[in-house]
């Protein structure tokens, strides 16, 4: 079997496992899910039967599972009772907003993080290196949501000047599309900054470590012995070889990125998957919570698959994933 096909089948199997896991998680809730959904202990038997039918909880577990799969294939994620809307359309909007936030922060984090990591890694033993390492470890230890709270305080209460909540100005009237873009961009600044501040540390540390390890290799000694200019040495010989572990580590980092986004969205009321999850938890809106978990997990699995494809491109030696 070609490795690519194998990897794809693995992705499908994982998604199927997630779907099944998700089903059991929310359908085998301790106690009666209907009581949880209705949030009342005093229901007539007729009302219980009706709710069971509405939420697809009648029949055996197997029929429920088959129904669940069929609905999923039709893009039907159920109905939110706190928002009174189809879950799939709610999730669709939220997912786009989260992707916007993650794209902006990831671009900053990867370019700046890798750059700073190379800077530090090529100056091992110097003051600039140890300062970078300590700063990164501090940033790495920060709870993302607390950084958000600090920025919220700084720019919302103390200095002011930047929007601190939502994705657009409420009730704004936009003369043209450019004003919309600039408004969204202004709202993006603080959430992106928060995410970037914490996440950048990971890339700095990984890149630095990888470069330091590579620097000890024989071919680096050879390159140094040839008297190559420092820039060529670091970027062409060191960095290119140090990049692979960075990509590998980044793949594992995708879920941490998502965790950061959830916290940032809660703090800045950014209407994405994180805020949706948070509100679903507060309202105990299980259909929404279930869909959020499912969609985030599948998105992460697909992102992993994508990163794996990139990795294959970068390193032709990889034929089978270990």
């Amino acid at each position, binding site marked *: 079997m070609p490795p690519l096909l194998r990897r794809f089948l693995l992705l499908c199997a*994982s998604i199927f*496992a*997630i779907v099944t896991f998700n089903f059991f*998680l*929310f359908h085998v*809730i*301790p106690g009666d899910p209907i009581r949880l959904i209705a949030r009342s202990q005093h229901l007539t038997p007729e009302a219980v039967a009706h709710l069971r039918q509405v939420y697809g909880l009648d029949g055996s577990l197997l029929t429920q599972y088959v129904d669940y799969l069929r609905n999923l294939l039709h893009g039907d994620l159920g109905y939110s009772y706190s928002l009174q809307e189809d879950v799939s359309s709610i999730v669709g909007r939220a997912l786009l907003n989260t992707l916007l936030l993650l794209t902006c922060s990831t671009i900053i984090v990867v370019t700046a993080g890798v750059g700073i990591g190379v800077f530090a890694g090529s100056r*091992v*033993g*110097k*003051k600039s*290196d*140890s300062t970078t*390492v*300590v700063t990164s*470890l*501090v940033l*790495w*230890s*920060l*709870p*993302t*949501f*607390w950084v958000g*709270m*600090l920025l*919220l*305080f700084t720019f*919302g*209460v*103390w200095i002011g000047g930047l929007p601190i909540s939502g994705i657009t100005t409420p009730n704004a009237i936009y003369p043209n599309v450019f004003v919309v873009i600039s408004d969204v961009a202004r709202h993006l600044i603080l959430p992106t900054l928060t995410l970037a501040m914490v996440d950048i540390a990971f890339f700095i540390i990984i890149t630095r*470590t990888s470069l*330091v*390890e590579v620097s*000890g290799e024989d071919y680096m000694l050879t390159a140094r012995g040839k008297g190559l200019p420092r820039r060529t040495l670091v970027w062409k010989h060191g960095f290119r070889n140090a990049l692979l572990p960075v990509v590998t580590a980044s793949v*594992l980092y*995708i*879920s941490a990125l*998502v*965790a950061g986004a*959830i*916290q940032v969205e*809660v*703090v800045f009321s950014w209407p994405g998957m994180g805020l949706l*999850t*948070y509100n679903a*938890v*507060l309202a*105990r809106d*299980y259909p929404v*919570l*279930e869909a*959020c*978990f499912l969609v*985030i*997990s599948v998105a*992460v*699995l697909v992102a*992993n698959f994508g990163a794996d494809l990139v990795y294959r491109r970068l390193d032709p030696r990889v034929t089978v994933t270990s």
Partner: protein
Amino acid sequence: MSFDLVPTEGDAVLREAPRGGTLRALWSDRLGRAGLLILIVVTIAAIFGPMIWPFDPSAVGESAASILQPPSSAHWLGTDELGRDVFAQFLAGARISLFVGVMATLISTVIGAGFGVLAGYFMGGIDAFLMAITDFFLVIPALPLMIALAAIFGQNLAIVILVIGLLSWPRTARIVRSQTLSLRSRQYVARARSLGATNTRIIRTNIAPHVGQLIVANTILVVAGCILAEATLAFIGLGDPNRISWGSSLHFAFVSGAIGRGAWWYFLPAGLGILTVVLGFTLVGHAFERIENPRLRGGA
């Protein structure tokens, strides 16, 4: 069997720090020493602080005048939106945050080490099966799953510890597996087997001790992750409502609008607490890594 089989020179070198040497190496590492000092101070504060500090962390203020008061000589860190003493909450929160972090790490280490040793030692089908589960949990995003589980199974300390512990082990399993794989191919394991040692005995006497030593750095870093996970869950409102942790402190600060009211004394301490403890564990963990992997030794 009356003699112990230990790795010898011929056994492709198991680098072992001499007894007591690891701690000394840690102390001579600047960052490691800083981390160790942080952890000692915080642990002492968490254990003895609540006994000494006169205020009860959950004692509500007596009048409206005691609400959200800035720091004073009586209340060193002011009061919260219910007039409770913030410093008392900070000390109580240190206990819960450390406790949850360490307990969740214990669970995670037991599962991770178990999976890793079994997979690495028996290889073949068992390995494939256990690693398929591990990889599955490695890629699914942990925080959304923790949120879902905590929301479904309710909020108390035991659930929070379980949820975090049960989702933090995959990386440990991976590391332990690769160590076990390399250990089991060593000569002294083959010798033990040829002398008739059972699998259980080989795992217990020849594999487990060395794996244990090698996963120390990883375990310490897991504690940092677990403390952050607890803080995040509590911030989202999924902590134990009857226990004050640093995360739940920040949750109440956020929800009660302390930020808008400029009550910095309410939301700064808990966050700084989390930062300090996580940094302490991270520094010690990375120092251990440097000790075990000398190639990483640079200026830092």
